[in-house]
């Protein structure tokens, strides 16, 4: 169970959060992008053996959506969001 740094609440137990998936490329303009690129955007996500940037929702906390960089090999959080003060 991870200890996730929430910018508002500080480090909290993973059980308070809902996983929001890896951060994807910016959403292309669906009116200009090709079919292949659109499918790629919709279905392919980064799956690195190493740090991945991902969304977490502090659903049973302050409600913040935050992103962290987490190493998929060790689960170490290698980059945390800035704290709010």
């Amino acid at each position: 169970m991870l200890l996730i740094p929430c910018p508002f609440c500080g480090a909290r137990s993973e059980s308070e959060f809902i996983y929001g998936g890896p951060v994807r490329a910016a959403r292309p303009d669906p009116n200009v992008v090709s079919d292949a690129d659109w499918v790629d955007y919709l279905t392919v996500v980064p799956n690195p053996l190493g740090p991945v940037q991902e969304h977490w929702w502090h659903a049973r906390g302050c409600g913040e959506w935050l992103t962290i960089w987490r190493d998929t090999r060790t689960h170490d959080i290698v980059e945390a969001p800035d704290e709010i003060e």
Partner: protein
Amino acid sequence: MRYDVTLQRCGLSAVFDLKGAADALRNWAGDMLPPLPDHPNTRTGGGGVELYHIGRKHWLARAPLAQEEVLEAQLKPDACPAEISIVRVSDTLSFFRITGPDASQVMAIACPLDLHETVFGADAVTYSELFGLKALVLRCEGGFECAVEQSFGDMVEDYLTLSCRQKPV
């Protein structure tokens, strides 16, 4: 042997959900509310009203139920400007009090938070978990106060009862 605590299921409080930029809120309701807490997950109080800073640009104003109509009249949820959101949520929260020497032991069963006084001080208030449910947790005289979504009230009562081996008073 059972834990040395007193468990109470509390009645309704008047609660208003406040969202928006701090100064926008001050402009609209500043004089009717205590000063906005400036640190995350802390609270201020005054005039029977408590103000909990429980999220980014997010506060809860809480007062005895008797003050609900007065607050509603003052805060005017329907009339407030587009920049801020004020919603009456008094019925949404079901409050419990766990007090007594073993209160923190019972909380350790229910909640993952580190509630040690050096970490969770007298003015601390935050959303966390109670038996896996989203819950408001704060310190009160001699123990802790918690609130869950009203519809889960009965379940949390059952589980607090189970945890401290005694019924609420």
